[in-house]
């Protein structure tokens, strides 16, 4: 138990708890009820799903800043599919996921096979995907989504839990299982630790990376369509700038930017923290113009505290000099 208390995840959990407490004390009636909690869940579902896709990428020391575009294009494609081809809900999701996979594969090809630095390649593809999508849709919202799909999105389980929550559970479980129990997952951590060593051990680094970017494409595609189901229409531009939020959530959740360290739990906590902060700002009646300063400061504080914790742990570690 003490071991776990020293981890990053524990520290984030502490910070989340503190924020939770502050908001509870500040505005208990509004905050502490299941309705509100599930509202927070619903508002941050899409972020959480996308973060699941981003986590493996960051674990390998990479990054994908085209996530926003991936989600946007996937949601547009799936909408076109459902409107013009078939209004089957499952196929709609599939269309979105497939779009994501294809775009992700293009990213993966640049990164794994042409050895382009991830941030650069995805920056380039971000401009291309987003620019093309904006050009073709001209930013027009797609509002004639088949009624069946819209109705599906409005379902609640037990009158409380939005149906999209199922997607979240599935994605979280999938990511967790992949990272912990598959060869692929081991490979992700290995690459993040030391890419050359991973190659020497025998991991097919190129193939792994390629599949990784297809994975985030898949997850982003699903996330995009989930958002469509929540709102019942598609706004091609709504995901602009979303990548920063996703990366922020994953990284605040303890994943190291150079790779090798991170966890599903941590990422979820990161999303929770972001969600609580947004919700809490209004609930605590913090004046609008102070809100951004607040959120930025909390994040800065969280990451600094984390580094200090790591330092202290490092200093306490017993070092043996092999003479």
């Amino acid at each position, binding site marked *: 138990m003490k071991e776990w208390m020293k981890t990053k995840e524990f520290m984030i959990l502490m910070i989340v708890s503190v924020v939770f407490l502050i908001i509870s004390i500040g505005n208990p009636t509004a905050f502490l009820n299941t309705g509100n909690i599930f*509202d927070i869940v619903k508002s941050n579902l899409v972020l959480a799903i996308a973060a699941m896709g981003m986590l493996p990428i960051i674990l390998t020391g990479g990054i994908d800043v085209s996530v926003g575009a991936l989600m946007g294009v996937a949601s547009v494609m799936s909408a076109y599919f459902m409107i013009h081809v078939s209004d089957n809900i499952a196929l709609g999701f599939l269309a979105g996921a497939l779009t994501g996979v294809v775009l992700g594969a293009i990213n993966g090809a640049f990164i794994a096979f042409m050895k382009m630095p991830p941030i650069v390649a995805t920056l380039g593809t971000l401009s291309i995907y987003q620019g093309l999508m904006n050009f073709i849709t001209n930013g*027009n919202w797609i509002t004639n989504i088949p009624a069946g799909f819209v109705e599906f999105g409005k379902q609640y389980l037990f009158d409380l839990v939005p149906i999209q929550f199922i997607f979240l559970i599935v994605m979280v479980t999938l990511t967790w299982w992949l990272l912990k129990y598959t060869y692929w997952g081991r490979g992700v951590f290995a690459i993040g630790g030391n890419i050359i060593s991973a190659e020497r051990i025998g991991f097919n680094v190129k193939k792994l990376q390629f599949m990784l970017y297809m994975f985030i494409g898949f997850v982003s595609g699903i996330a995009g369509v989930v958002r469509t189901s929540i*709102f019942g229409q598609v706004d091609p531009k709504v995901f602009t700038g979303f990548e920063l939020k996703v990366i922020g959530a994953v990284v605040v959740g303890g994943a190291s930017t150079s790779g090798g360290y991170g966890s599903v739990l941590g990422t979820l906590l990161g999303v929770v923290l972001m969600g609580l902060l947004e919700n809490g700002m209004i609930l605590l009646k913090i*004046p609008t113009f102070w809100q951004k300063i607040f959120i930025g400061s909390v994040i800065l504080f969280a990451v600094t505290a984390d580094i200090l914790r790591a330092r202290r742990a490092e200093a306490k570690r017993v070092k043996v000099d092999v003479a």
Partner: protein
Amino acid sequence: MFKKAISVMLVLVMVTLVGCSAATTTATTAAPAATTAAAAETTAAPAGGSESYTIVVMPKLIGIPYFNRSQTGAEQAGKDLGVNVIYNGPSVGDAAQQVQMIEDYITQGVDAICVAPNDAAALTPVLQKAKDAGIKVLDWDTPAEKSVVELSVHQIDDKELAQVYYDQLVEIAGTDSGNYAIITGGLSAANLNTWIDLGAEYAKTKYPNLKLVTDKIGSDESADIAYQKSLDLIKTYPA
């Protein structure tokens, strides 16, 4: 009481999103947007001109349903009047990008520029340059600095619009005393801020019992965020 609060929030949310991106209310604002652009052009192209004029119609940014309507109007007007219409604008609502595009159009040597400024003050120097180069300058949708434009086309009177907002608000809520909140498309959007400020002044005199519970909240022009913030507002300030 809770129901009233919801309706209050909803009205404000819908109405402030009109400023830039709501699809649901596009229908009602489509007509004014299209006619605004057309009107701007009719004045730019002097009647009876035999050469084809090149007129630039520039929105705040392209790729938004509201401004897409303006594009339809502008291009239709171009066909009707027999002038060459260039409808283009920055890809984000960035005044810097807009200024650069206008500078490039000055270099191109167009005959008139009708612009919806992202920021009046920022565009003043470049519009003055245009004027000095003999290009006719007009503004539409959002006013620019008066001294540089020949004509200002406005789809609606700001003051009246702000008053209508508040009148409708009171009508739907069914009472003129109570709490309300404002969610705006963007904290730094000049025209939205104008409407909000004018409306607040109006409300002070006409509806003194309306209480604004907190400063305006920005939604970064995202319906998702606006929805989320509305929920939070309703919970924080019940009734």
